[in-house]
């Protein structure tokens, strides 16, 4: 077994008196689609932001694609793709301009850049009609999501972090999106994804369930459901949510 793509060790983050993530330890294997599951406020987004170098850990660390996030946060950034809840696209740039911009920012240029952009466009089906010349503001939720994924993929990152990537997207677009995620994983990309949707959680190879900053269950979707004490994953989630919010 090779070393894990993401190796989280005792990762902790406090905001004042609140502990958002508490001593989180877990490993994500290369090529795995790993789901981070939990109610609002359970620490999923804070965890992803620390792994991307956007937030500094209070203590503990993680090694992402072989690089320590505390020692070299800027080097981590060359090895990861990140898609936030808000997608981070420019409304006043076209689809093609958004892709070209992010490709350039990741250091692609010239032929390498144009070739890679058209590869991603083909992979995600972004090329139909006049799509490439449409402004970001004119896209529907599903297309925005696809474009955001495209922007995160251009530099062929070995690790991909997706923070609630399917919030506010219709079911057909969600299915297409997950198909793309699995294609990427088959090609060797490691994917860490947070979600609220149980049907999406079921599509992950492995899951970690978080509650109030703690890891409370880890394993395949069936394992996690059993550990939390529900018949299905959905039961388990609802039990947890009521407990956390109560």
């Amino acid at each position, binding site marked *: 077994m090779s070393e894990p793509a993401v190796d989280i060790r005792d990762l902790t983050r406090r905001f004042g008196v609140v502990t958002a993530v508490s001593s989180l330890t877990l490993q994500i294997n290369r090529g795995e689609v790993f789901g981070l599951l939990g109610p609002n406020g359970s620490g999923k987004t804070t965890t992803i932001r620390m792994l991307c170098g956007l937030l500094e850990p209070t203590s503990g660390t993680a090694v992402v694609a072989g690089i320590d996030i505390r020692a070299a946060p800027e080097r981590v950034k060359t090895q990861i793709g990140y898609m936030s809840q808000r997608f981070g696209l*420019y409304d006043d740039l076209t689809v093609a*301009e958004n892709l070209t911009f992010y490709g350039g920012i990741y250091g692609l240029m010239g032929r390498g850049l144009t070739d890679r952009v058209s590869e991603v466009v083909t992979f995600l089906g972004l090329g139909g009609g006049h799509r490439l010349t449409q402004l970001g503001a004119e896209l529907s939720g599903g297309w925005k999501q696809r474009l955001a994924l495209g922007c995160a993929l251009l530099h062929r990152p070995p690790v991909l972090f997706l923070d609630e990537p399917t919030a506010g997207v219709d079911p057909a677009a969600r299915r297409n999106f997950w198909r793309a995620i699995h294609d990427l994983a088959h090609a060797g990309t490691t994917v860490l994804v947070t979600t609220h949707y149980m049907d999406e959680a079921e599509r992950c190879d492995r899951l970690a369930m978080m509650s109030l900053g703690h890891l409370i269950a880890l394993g395949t979707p069936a394992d996690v459901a059993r550990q939390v004490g529900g018949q299905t994953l959905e039961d388990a989630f609802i039990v947890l949510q009521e407990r956390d919010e109560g």
Partner: protein
Amino acid sequence: MNSRFWPMFRKEFIQMRRDRLTLGIMFGIPVIQLLMFGFAIQTDVRHIPTVVLDESRTPASRDIIAALENTGSFRIIAYVNDRPSIDAAFSRGAAQAGILVPADYPRNLGRGLTATIQVIVDASDPLSSQSALAAAAGVAQMRNLEILAAAAGRRTLPVEARVRPRYNPGLRSPNYIVPGLVGLILTMTMVLITAMAIVRERERGTLEQLIVTPITKTELMLGKIAPYVGVGLFQMTAVLLLGRFVFDVPLVGSLWLLYGVSLVFIVASLSLGLFISTLVRTQQQSMQMSFFFMLPSILLSGFMFPRQAMPPLFQWIGLALPLTHFLLVLRGILLKGVGLSAIWPQVVVLVGFAVGLIVLAVRRFHKTLD
């Protein structure tokens, strides 16, 4: 320059081009401001509406009234018959000056006594009243000299102070205002534009995406300000051309030197905006902070009011504004035609502002969310 600067530059350029409203403001402001300041604002007040009460109605009284009118400061709108009518004209706002020649004026003049005329001014507007007072005093002085010289049997005056107004022989306001306006317009637009730059990305959620990429802070900052350097140079050219051809402002000195120093000033202003952008959380706050900076720039830099007249504290505050130093450069080069040897202290200060502010902005900016 690293390769990631160029994608940032291109992106900012495309966004700038698509933002029609901002673009319109950036290119509209110089033209509108110039026309406003150039045509509307004249500090040499002339043709003040004046009423006249001539109680003596003699050649001597008509003579002194004509002399006052010939200064160009007074424009006689009516002759009145009593003193209350003067007050009434002032109250209505019809007149801002009144000339009163008393009935005993020619008699006193003839007997060698002091002959008095009154010039009454509406001093609620100090600028125009000063101009009227100066004109009246000048006329009286002239008349005195003529009479005294004649009495002494001389044809020439014993002493004369000949004032030569250099660099602006006609004492024209536009010559003074237009070069200053270059600096003022650059300050207003450059600071405001970049003050929005980082917060706008923060508000739209694109900053989070940007700082998760390997772009360095310096590449990000320089890429953001670079496209606006071009806008600044364009604005400046527009003001200078309009100043030259509409207001006849002379452009005496080296334009190369002028553009070189202006480039430094533009970078300083853009960096200041960028620095503001790193201090605030919302676009509204950045707008307020920019205006907070703008007012002293207009009032204390020497753009409108001479700095020599200010108390020391305000002169020092003025020195902390880049515009104060840039104005000296602008007027020096455009009106006096001076070279680098005369303005190098200002240039050093401006370079200091530009470098210091950009370092400050880069330092303040963090590639993390907290």
